[in-house]
């Protein structure tokens, strides 16, 4: 019975933290894209700042999500069926979130237009990967098979 109670704690932690990287990476990419098209320098900077903060918060949220997920999956990093597809999207998404955060924290506002465009492409790729990981995570918990 203690084992089941312990499992519930990790389930709650996974359920509580796993939505942070999904939602925040999506809005981070959108904020940065808006910052790239808006002409007003002041508004542009604010969108980029919001993009940075949501990216960092999403990346920080990914750590408890990954830890609790690994414990729930009994430390399985691959698996079969929906769990396999969850992991196929999850690991590249996790790596990309960390890489994007490190790059942004080092470069800050000192980026070129080409550098920003490459970053934005990577940010939308991360948003797609983390959303796909979230979809397959939902299939693991609520799927029919």
């Amino acid at each position, binding site marked *: 019975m203690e*084992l*089941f109670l312990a*499992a*519930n704690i990790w*389930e709650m932690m996974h359920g509580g933290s796993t939505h942070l990287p999904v939602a925040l990476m999506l809005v981070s990419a959108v904020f940065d894209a808006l910052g790239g098209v808006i002409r007003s320098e002041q508004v542009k900077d604010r969108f980029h700042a919001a993009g940075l903060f949501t990216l960092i918060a999403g990346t920080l949220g990914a750590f408890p999500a*990954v830890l609790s997920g*690994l414990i*729930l*999956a*009994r*430390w*399985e*990093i691959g*698996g079969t069926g929906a*769990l396999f597809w969850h992991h196929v999207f999850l*690991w590249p998404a*996790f*790596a*990309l979130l*960390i*890489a*994007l*955060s*490190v*790059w942004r924290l*080092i*470069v800050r506002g*000192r*980026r*070129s237009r080409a*550098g920003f465009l490459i970053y934005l492409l990577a940010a939308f790729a991360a948003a797609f990967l983390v959303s796909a990981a979230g979809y397959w995570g939902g299939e*693991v*918990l*609520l799927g*029919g*098979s």
Partner: protein
Amino acid sequence: MKRALFGLEFIAGVLAIVVAAVVVGSTLGSATLVRAAIEKARSDSAASSNQPQLSALVAHGQKLFAVNCSHCHADDATGDEGPDLHGLTKSDERIKGIITNGIKGEMPAFGKKLQEADKDALLGFLRSLK
């Protein structure tokens, strides 16, 4: 100035890839090591005991499984008409919900046949399957 900016972005990119590779690599490596250690401990424990000590809950669940579930999921729960039930990753509530309500067109409902304690026992047995 433009060259210096490109240099900073390039160095930041290389550093970002290295940090991501180290973090994700160490996470995957640690998980693999922990899983291997757990499996080794389990196999050592099973080898040292001639008769596995099943708890009363799991033993009751095993009996219920043999009567109600083994027709479709096979005697050893590795799957036949129904899926393999080893290493389930669904939540306890979800598994009990499937036992109670079944899956339309795929699995019958056992909500009327099994009491709550029976479902707990069945769940305990399913969780014991590795």
